[in-house]
């Protein structure tokens, strides 16, 4: 039996649509599943009080604070260092084997599993440098983890700025630093911002590496050397130990909404980048 090409075409298109719709359905299902079970348990108390009875009751305020501390500090370290490194590599040095090697290294490290960073941090920061399980250890580990990504996206954004703009700036008597800040960074900002925002998203979702470096203390972290439990770690422990399903769903809801908002932010800033360049 010979099947007409038109028929195979129709079958194929139907199959492709099925596959795509299924994929989107999975996404929507996951979000709906978590939010449906978790949203009813979200309350002001949830956001403002501390957990009691190992998390079976109470809220997640220390976890939110812990997440903000760890993520905030990590990005506060990684963003300037990463962007500065990218600026130095593209604007202040000539292209050479060394810069190509650094770029290759950053590319590779951007793909290394986060658990390996956790491995490093749990020995180097926690033990060797004596920081213990703490916000500081966690933040430094996360900073090294997202650094390659920030270097890479910043570098790409800077390279996308047309060479002519630099010539124009020099021609008008600008110094190198004026050219870098007023012309290059101004144009590359959306691309750089996207990289930073994505790194924030990745930090918030990170679990295993943080358990090994920031620990899982239930209390409110009051200093950089206190151990802290982030929201994703809390969620993992709640679900693994089966302590309280409602609280677990609620924590997951907060996590999902936070990460989705961040991704939306990255998406929006990326579109501005494309619009500016084209």
């Amino acid at each position: 039996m010979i099947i007409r090409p038109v028929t195979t075409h129709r079958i194929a298109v139907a199959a492709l649509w099925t596959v795509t719709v299924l994929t989107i359905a999975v996404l929507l299902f996951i979000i709906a599943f978590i939010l449906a079970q978790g949203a009813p348990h979200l309350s002001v108390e949830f956001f403002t009080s501390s957990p009691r009875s190992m998390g079976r009751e109470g809220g997640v305020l220390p976890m939110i604070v812990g997440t903000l501390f760890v993520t905030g500090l990590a990005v506060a370290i990684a963003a300037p260092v990463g962007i500065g490194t990218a600026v130095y590599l593209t604007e202040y040095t000539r292209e050479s084997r060394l810069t190509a090697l650094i770029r290759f290294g950053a590319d590779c490290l951007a793909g290394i599993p986060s658990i390996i960073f956790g491995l490093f941090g749990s020995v180097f920061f926690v033990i060797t440098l004596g920081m213990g399980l703490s916000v500081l250890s966690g933040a430094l580990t996360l900073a090294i983890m997202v650094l390659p990504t920030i270097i890479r996206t910043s570098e790409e954004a800077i390279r996308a700025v047309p060479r002519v703009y630099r010539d124009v700036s020099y021609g008008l008597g600008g110094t190198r630093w004026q050219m870098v800040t007023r012309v290059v960074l101004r144009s590359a900002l959306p691309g750089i911002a996207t990289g930073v925002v994505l790194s924030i998203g990745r930090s918030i979702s990170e679990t295993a590496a943080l358990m090994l470096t920031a620990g899982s203390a239930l209390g409110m972290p009051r200093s950089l050397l206190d151990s802290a439990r982030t929201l994703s770690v809390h969620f993992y422990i709640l679900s693994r130990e089966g302590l309280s399903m409602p609280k677990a769903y609620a924590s997951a809801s907060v996590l999902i909404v936070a990460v989705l908002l961040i991704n939306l932010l990255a998406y929006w800033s990326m579109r501005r980048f494309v619009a500016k360049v084209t």
Partner: protein
Amino acid sequence: MKLDKFIRVVLLLVALSGVSGLALMTAFIFKEGLPLMVRLGVADFIFSSQWYPSEGQFGIAPMIVGSLAVTAGAMVISLVFGLGCAILLTQFCPPRLATGVIKPCIELLAGIPSVVYGFVGVTILVPFIRDYLGGPGLSVLASSIVLGVMVLPTVTSISADALRAVPRSYREGSIALGATEWQTTHMVMLKAAMSGIVAAVILGMGRAVGETMAVIMVAGNPLAMPDSLLSPVRTLTSNIALEMSYAAGDHRKALFATGVTLFVIIMILNTIALAVSRRRARRAGL
């Protein structure tokens, strides 16, 4: 002028600290893990299936097989669904629907935390497998499905880029010869975008190999070699995450050695992906 020189020095220091931080990490991992591997014999470490830390036996073969099995399964799923979405997005879908709805959805998939994936897997997928397919539910199959969905956005976006990079003339030429759009796709476009798609798959594999939390939650993590799709499994990353908190001495070094193995695997995958995409660029005459 003086300000410029000062800034150059500051930026140099910043760049040095950034680069040396990364180099430090790499060196540290290798320094902690490599000596043990050499002492035990690299072949023994990789091929032995005896992982009994308390007796000083460190063989990671079951974990390597576990990682390979789970990754292979994940790639099958992400290839079918991910490539399917990419083909639909670039060849068959009206552009506004594609960029406005489907693409954002797929990118949102990439944003969901891995613990949430693991949780949904444990709560819904694992009981389903246990009840309808047998076995404990915590299995290679469950891990593959969860990982496949997680890796899907990577495969989709890189494949879509590769397909979009195919010159329009190929597509138009084929249609002008009377081929249907599907014939054009599978006879012309896919072949032309093949190296990009291969790169997408390889990068997806890298992501899958490196994933930890979701797999820990749905895989079961026994110390044995998996013998079927439905048997529980432990991957390299799970091994590290589960044992690190209480490992000491040689045990800890063995976990670092596992890290070294992972590092090398990812480097190999990255290099292959780079070589593949370079070959594509050269062929396209760039």
